Every structure is written in structure tokens, then in C-alpha cells.
């Protein structure tokens, strides 16, 4: 009985600890992908990997030190010192940029992965009574920075958009929204469009950074809008996709979906492709917002589809990458991965790259979906 009691108490302790540490299998984010003919860059489990597009071999990994083991209660590797990379890398001519969830943006040499500079968006306030009234801001870099000429524009979850010199990493200016900025900013010759989780799309004068207009979508905006001509298309968690006059911010049309519209809209010719997280892709008339066709998947959709030569490539949580006829929505083929596909696929020449949630990068033939190589960093030693 004594031992039974001890065992029972011990078990309760363990259960309590598990509850307290909040073990859960929810992924923190999805891998990010960027590619050109020279390399495929992917952010996987707190590291940036450069992969040879010809054979899927690793060229370099940043940071190079291995991740530490996690602590009590939860499985999985501990957070690396560089933080976790939510956003897709951004490619410059000689530099690749990537932002992490601890607010650090790294500029790395594309050839060998050496760090050129690091920008810190906002350090968390230190603990202690002296900071009693200070506000702790979450400095995560969720969205990819936007590189425009000599300046890189970095969105941060601490509500700021930073303009940083792309060669030195020195801050030039910042703009603050009312809530986190998860989306990459859109730059035009004279304007900056910033979508924020405060449900607003801001239009700023590029030179003065003064707000020209702001449009409230009624829901948080987690992804980058699409700008084509004088129309800007915005997906919102208000279960709507809206088309706005890019000059005035006036609404042109609105398309309602049945769940969150998370992914960036994709505009090809006169059609805008939007998706809802419940797993449906819609093709809409870009001018009127009228539905042309839709395609259902069995999983959720987070990522914008890729497009090349009349074909859409749609990644779904159901582990499938669907190749669809962009005009009709007819399925041409599908590739089934080993885990959910939450990240946007990328087409470069005749290669299609997609990364699955089990941290594998798949190099496919863009025409047939045949797998050419697979990069699995956990197997690579």
C-alpha cells in the first residue's frame, strides 16, 4: 500500500508536470523556401540550409552548431540560439536574408553561409522590478523581409516595419502599426503597403512614410497582399478576400469564403487565385471577384500556389502537391509527400521545389511531378 501510494503520488506529479509544461504536438511554424538556378534555400527547424539544385546535396547550413536537446516534458529539439526561422529566406545578389522568431535578421553570404551582418528588431525587456511598467514586445520576424534596391524592409511582430540598409544592416527608419506585422511589405515606386494583424492595410508615402490611407478588413491580415496594376488584393482572417483601389483604398469587390483566408492571393492575367484554410482554392475574376472555379483538397491550405506555364502548384496539409490547369482547375497530376505540405512551392526553370513538414525538401520535375531528389537533413551527417 505504501508503495502504491508513493506510485500514485509520483504519477500525479508527472501528470501535473506534463500539464504544466503544456506538451503539445502543434507545430510552431512551417519551413520556408526560396530558390533560384544556383541554390535552394530552406529554413528548417531553426537552421538555414543551402541545397544544390542539381542533386539535393547540402552546400552549407547556418548556424553550423547542432541544436541542443529539449528540456522536461516535451519532445523535440530545443530552440537554437539563432531562434526559429518562420519566414522564407530572401535572395539578394550575393546575400541571402532570413529573420528568426527572436527578432534577429541574418544576412548570409550565398556561397558559403558566412554571416555578413545581423539586425535585431527589438530585444525583449529584461526581467526585474525596474521593468515593472515597461511593455514586453514580441520581436519575432514572422514574414519575409522585402528587398528593394539598397534597402531591406523587415516586418516584425513587435508592430514595427524597419527599413534597414541591405549592405550594412543599419536601421534607416521604422513605422509602427497597432499590432504585429506578419506580412512582407509591398513596395512601389512611391508607396509602401503594410498589412498588419491589427486588421488594417496601411498605404504609406514612400518618401515621407506618412499614412495615405488605411483599410480595415475586419480581420487580421497574416499574409502579404498582391498588387497588380492599380488593384491590391488582400486575404483576411475575417473570411474575406478584398480587392482595393491601390491609390485610394476604396473597396472594389469582396469575396467571402467559409474559413480564414490566410494565403497571399496570386494574380495571373485576369484571374486571382485565393484559398481558404479549410482546403479550397478559388479562381476569381480579378476585375469583378466572380468565382470561376474552385478546387477542394482534403487538408488545410496556408501557402500561396506557385505558377508556371499555365499550371498552378498547390500545396495542402493532406500531404499532396496538386498540379492544376490554371484556366479550368482540372488536376493534371499530384505528388504525395511524406508529411503535410504547408509551405509555398517554388518553380525554377523545369524544377519544382516543395518542402514537407517532416523537414524534407523534394526536388520534382515541374512537368510530371516525378521526384528527382530529396534533401533530408536529419539523415545527412
Amino acid at each position, binding site marked *: 500500500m505504501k508503495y502504491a501510494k508513493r506510485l500514485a503520488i509520483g504519477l*500525479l506529479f508527472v501528470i501535473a508536470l506534463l*500539464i504544466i509544461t*503544456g506538451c503539445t504536438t*502543434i507545430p510552431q511554424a512551417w519551413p520556408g523556401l526560396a530558390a533560384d538556378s544556383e541554390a535552394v534555400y530552406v529554413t528548417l527547424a531553426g537552421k538555414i540550409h543551402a541545397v544544390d539544385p542539381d542533386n539535393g546535396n547540402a552546400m552549407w547550413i547556418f548556424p553550423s552548431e547542432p541544436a541542443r536537446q529539449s528540456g522536461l516534458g516535451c519532445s523535440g529539439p530545443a530552440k537554437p540560439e539563432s531562434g526559429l526561422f518562420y519566414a522564407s529566406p530572401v535572395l539578394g545578389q550575393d546575400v541571402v536574408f532570413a529573420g528568426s522568431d527572436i527578432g534577429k535578421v541574418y544576412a548570409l553570404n550565398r556561397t558559403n553561409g558566412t554571416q555578413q551582418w545581423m539586425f535585431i528588431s527589438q530585444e525583449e525587456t*529584461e526581467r526585474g*522590478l525596474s521593468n515593472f511598467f515597461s511593455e*514586453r514586445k514580441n520581436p519575432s520576424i*514572422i514574414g519575409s523581409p522585402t528587398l528593394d534596391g539598397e534597402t531591406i524592409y523587415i516586418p516584425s511582430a513587435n508592430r514595427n516595419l524597419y527599413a534597414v540598409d541591405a549592405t550594412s544592416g543599419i536601421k534607416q527608419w521604422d513605422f509602427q502599426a497597432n499590432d504585429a506585422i506578419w506580412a512582407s511589405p509591398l513596395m512601389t515606386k512611391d508607396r509602401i503597403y503594410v498589412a498588419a494583424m491589427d486588421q488594417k492595410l496601411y498605404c504609406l508615402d514612400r518618401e515621407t512614410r506618412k499614412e495615405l490611407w488605411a483599410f480595415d478588413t475586419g480581420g487580421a491580415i497574416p499574409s502579404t497582399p498582391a498588387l497588380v496594376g492599380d488593384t491590391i488584393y488582400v486575404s483576411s482572417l475575417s473570411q474575406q478576400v478584398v480587392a482595393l483601389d491601390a491609390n485610394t483604398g476604396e473597396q472594389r469587390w469582396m469575396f467571402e469564403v467559409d474559413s480564414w483566408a490566410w494565403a497571399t492571393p496570386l494574380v495571373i492575367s485576369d484571374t486571382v487565385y485565393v484559398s481558404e484554410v479549410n482546403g479550397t482554392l478559388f479562381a476569381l475574376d480579378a476585375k469583378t471577384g466572380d468565382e470561376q472555379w474552385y478546387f477542394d483538397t482534403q487538408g488545410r491550405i496556408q501557402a500561396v500556389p506557385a505558377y508556371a506555364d499555365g499550371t498552378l502548384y498547390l500545396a495542402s496539409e493532406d500531404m499532396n502537391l496538386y498540379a492544376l490547369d490554371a484556366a479550368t482547375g482540372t488536376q493534371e497530376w499530384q505528388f504525395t509527400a511524406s508529411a503535410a505540405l504547408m509551405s509555398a512551392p517554388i518553380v525554377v526553370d523545369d524544377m519544382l521545389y516543395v518542402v514537407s513538414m517532416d523537414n524534407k525538401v523534394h526536388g520534382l520535375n515541374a512537368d510530371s511531378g516525378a521526384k528527382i531528389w530529396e534533401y533530408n537533413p536529419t539523415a545527412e551527417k
Partner: protein
Amino acid sequence: MDWLIEPFMPIMVNGLMFFYQLFGNSFVLSLALLTIIVRLLTLPLMLPMQKSARKQAELQPQIQAIRKKYTKNSQKQNEELMKLYREAGINPMAGCLPMLIQLPVMWAFYQAIVRSLAFDPGKLFFGLGKYIASSAAFSTLVPLNSRFLWLNLATPDSTYVLPILVGLTTWLQQKLTPSTAASSGGEDQAQAMSQSMMLTMPLMFAFITINLASGLAVYFIISNLVGMAIQFFINRAMPTPQPAASLAGKPPTQAKTTPAPKPSPAGGQGQSQARGSSKRKGKGKRKRK
């Protein structure tokens, strides 16, 4: 382990969202009301546990006598204890079962809070989005307002005020909750363990809270306060029994004045001890079988 909490998750998340909206986007008020509701709903599961603990406390003198008598024969000791429990209508496991049943509910509530305060894309998409992405009413509430006093509920409290309050309220709640061993002068080892738990649990909770989102710390505090209120009413409705000093009881001078009669396997020992206790302490109104 997600399968265990999944049936309760939509209720918890939507409940939090409903009250959040109702209270003008106040997460703390939503949390407080839902905590009260959950604690009240799980009360029927808690009561048998408390009743069982009280009954066991009442039987401690007999239990101690049996333990002493059959010190060297653990098999016989267990048989006699089970017999005693059976005769008193106690299922020793009855206390654990309700506790285990309500664990998934509490866990789901905890996870609902974690997911509601999500501020990274994965937790929002896979966590909260799973339950409210299709809800037109709640979709527009995201991201939730996580400001409360000096706190950002999604991040740990940098002032350490909440961890201290968590430890304090956990200790107070434990203090109010009668345990079998402590309330009845049970065996020394069990008492020592109980006392050790009284200290280590609040410390452990306080320590863990340091690195948890302050929304969870607020939940722990509210939950402890609600638990204390409930316990107060339970204690009034079911007063803690005051049985005789056990064979291992204290103080020794009292044990001397009330020498323990020979134990009998049928529980006669318990009767005489209980009566002895009544005389000595002026309580013990209950009759034993």
C-alpha cells in the same frame, strides 16, 4: 496525448472566445468566468473524492491498528484493510478515479488558453485556427487582446509577481483541503509526505510559472481562488472528522491517557478508539459501524 483532450477542446476554445467577446475583449474576465464554470461542472467529480477522503480519515484509527497488528504480514494486512474498507463502504480507488476523469478537462482548458494566446503563426494556424477558422463570429477576434494591467498575457511576467501569487494561492488552497493523512493523524510517513507536498507543490508551481505565459499564471491564480471558495463551502457542508489519536498519533501524553485497546480485525478497535477520542477532545459525534 492530444486525443485525450480533443473532445473538450472545441468547447473550451469556443467558450473562451464567447466570453471574450461578451466581456468586450477582456481575456482575463473570460478566463475567470470559464474557470468558475469548469470548476463548478467538475464539482460532482470532486465531491466523491472528498467524501472518500473524509471516510478514510474517520477510519484511520482502525487502519493504524491493523497496520500495527500485521506489520510483518503484509498480505494479511492488505486483506484486513480491504475488509475494513468494504465494510465501511469505501473504495480506496474511488478518490483517484474522479481526479483522473477531470484531468483531460483541465488539460483541455489549459491548452485552450495556450492556443488562444498564440502569437506565432503555427500555433494560430494549427491551434486556434482549428477550432475557430470557420466561425464567422470569432474569426474577427484574432489576435486576442493580451494586455492586462502591466502584463502581456502571452509572455511571462517579468516582475515575478504572478509566480509568487501562484505559489501563495496554491499553498492556501492546499491548506484548506483536508488530506487523509494530515487530518486524521495518519502514519508518520504519510504525514511527512503530505507536509512535504504542501511545500513543494506551491514552490514547483511558482517556479514553473516563471517561464509560462502570464495568461496561464492568471489562470492558476483564478483557479486556486475558485478552488478555495469551493473548498470553503465543502468544508462547511462536510466538516473534517476528528477521530481518535492514532496509534502513531501525538502528543504522546494524550496517547498515554488513552491507552489503545487490543485491535480486532472486525473493526472493534476502531470503535473504542473513536469513543476514546470523543471523550478526550469533546468531539466525535459520529457513530461507527
